């Protein structure tokens, strides 16, 4: 049995259904998988999570979590999943301990019962257990929220943008924690706008404007990128970008950190760029492997075309 199935889900907002948040989305998640939903802000990630956690109703299509229908069996789903919304949603005027205790009791369990599951995470915030949740740092808040979402040992864990607004070190720690949880057999769905986090998932779904662009393992997605890709750098970057756009070997070119990423048309080779007649100073060209972001941009442009 799949942990999560989503079948042709459509979700619109507004009176005239003017805003399409999810447009015919289908995918499924295997039990025990760490599944990433990756896309920019406004892509439909939160809507998808709220549909799966039974907080919203879809216009059409169906979905199941742990074999239960999200509309019909919503009570059963609410008993067994863990959900951590994108916004910090604990009680700021209760202490760390009180928050955790409260969530444990409303899920009919106790901290002691499932302490093993959260131990690794909880020890990091335990020194501050008497502190009010509102006075914790961003990373600490996320850890506490994760503990609260985990305290009843959910079968499926939904994490909506857990690393947004968290520093790089805490982000890394957070993903380490998720790996640990996965080993405990919990299915995890995590959404993120950071493309570099895709590689940490077992499988990812790339989402843009409510449409799924691709669902696969990160390596399969990057392997599917057929065209050669180069990192290009010169003294005058903007000028370089504009000139590259006009070149006959260019499929696509876009700024990427301190380089421009240049996607070549099929059949073109890096040598074609070396021999390119131009007036660039200090032109540096380096063939690279495409990463998820390159794939995302290519898939996005493909779907627009």
């Amino acid at each position, binding site marked *: 049995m799949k942990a999560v199935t989503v079948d042709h889900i459509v979700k619109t907002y507004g009176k005239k259904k003017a805003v399409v948040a999810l447009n015919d989305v289908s995918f499924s998640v295997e039990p025990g998988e760490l599944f990433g939903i990756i896309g920019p802000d406004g892509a439909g990630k939160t809507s998808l999570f709220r549909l799966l956690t*039974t*907080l*919203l*109703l879809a216009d059409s299509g169906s979905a199941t979590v742990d074999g239960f229908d999200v509309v019909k069996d919503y009570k059963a789903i*609410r008993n067994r999943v863990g*959900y951590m919304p994108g916004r910090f949603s604990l009680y700021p*005027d209760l202490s760390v301990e*009180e928050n955790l205790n409260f969530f444990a009791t*409303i899920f*009919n369990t106790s901290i002691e019962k499932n302490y093993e599951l959260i131990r690794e995470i909880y020890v990091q915030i335990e020194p501050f257990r008497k502190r009010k949740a509102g006075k914790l740092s961003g990373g600490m808040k996320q850890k506490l929220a994760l503990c609260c979402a985990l305290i009843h040992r959910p079968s499926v864990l939904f994490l909506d943008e857990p690393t947004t607004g968290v520093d790089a070190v805490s982000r890394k720690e957070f993903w380490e924690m998720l790996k640990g949880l996965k080993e405990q057999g919990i299915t995890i769905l995590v959404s993120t706008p950071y493309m570099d986090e895709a590689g940490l998932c077992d499988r990812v779904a790339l989402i843009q404007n409510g449409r799924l662009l691709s669902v696969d393992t990160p390596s399969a997605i990057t392997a599917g990128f057929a065209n050669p890709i180069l990192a290009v750098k010169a003294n005058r970057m903007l000028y370089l970008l504009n000139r590259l756009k006009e070149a006959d070997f260019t499929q696509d070119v876009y700024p990427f950190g301190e380089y421009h990423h240049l996607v070549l048309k099929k059949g073109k080779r890096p040598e074609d760029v070396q021999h390119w007649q131009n007036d660039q100073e200090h032109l540096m060209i380096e063939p690279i492997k495409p990463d998820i972001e390159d794939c995302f941009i290519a898939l996005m442009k493909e779907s627009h075309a």
Partner: protein
Amino acid sequence: MKQFLSFVKKEFFHIWRDKSTLLILLGMPVVQIVIFGFALTNEVKNSRIAVLDPSKDASSLAITAELDASRYFDLEKNLVNFAQVEEEFRRGKIKLAVIFPAHFADDLQHFNKATVQLIADASDPNVANTLTNYATAIITDYQARITGNKQLPYTIQTEMRMLYNPQMKGAFNFVPGLMAMVLLLVCTMMTAITIVKEKEMGTMEVMLVSPMRPQMVVLAKAVPYLFISSINIATILLLSVYALEVPINGSLFLVVAESILFTLVSLSLGLLISSSAGTQQTAMFISLIGLFMPTLMLSGFMFPIENMPLPLRVISNIVPAKWYYLVVRSVMIKGVGLQEIWKETLVLFGMLVFFLTLAIRKFKIRLA
């Protein structure tokens, strides 16, 4: 059950840790009793008056002395000419001027008739009315004494008795009104605000994705406010009995029972508001404009409903506080039992059932 208790405990933490709100919730009835009981009273006491008395004879002096002696009036000034009357009113020094004609006693004795002019500052018509009534009563009293036992032909004497409130204390009127107001404010507004607060903070989102039933969330929210309301009812009753000397003529148990019924009506109204309001501000505005104002205006506490035009009288029937006010006033002041107020009680009970059903049916088990 353990879930429920844990939720109630959490709710008490919220209230206990927000000291300023707690102070307002518990202090509000005390402050209101003090303000309404001692400052904002429409009883007339110690009003300053001026007397213009060119005759200065035994009768006019006796009347002046009696006016001054009464607790309603303080003689501020003896005037010497008519121009000063206008001047004193303009300066706002006095509320009432008593003007005797020259030869007041002579007129009274020789023509059997004399006039006294009372000029009142009617910028506040109610006060002016009351003052002239008091002054007339004192003068009539004096007349009755000089008439003595002489039988006048054809006289009609009116004898008045103020039932239930012989001293005409304002407190008899506002204590029941105040109870309605405080209960409404604490139960309706605070309940609505705290539920909406959970929505605003996003904690409701987490709460919905839990085994906790939404109805249970709502009920658990109401418990601490029921508790605070009980403290408030006790404070108001104690203060009104011991500080304002308002008696509880009827059964105390009945007053408390009816108050709890009204508290439940207010709580269910609060729940109803919370299900339609998206932000704390909206919840507050709906409570204030949609409930607090009608309660103040249409419950009969500030303005008598009998004097209102028909449409307002009809509307006043849907204001729960009107019924509660009637009940508490009847039980506390008139001392009646349940057999006299069962209709009002039934109306309140009907409202409770109606609002509660609506609130639970409207409660959203999802986000949108």
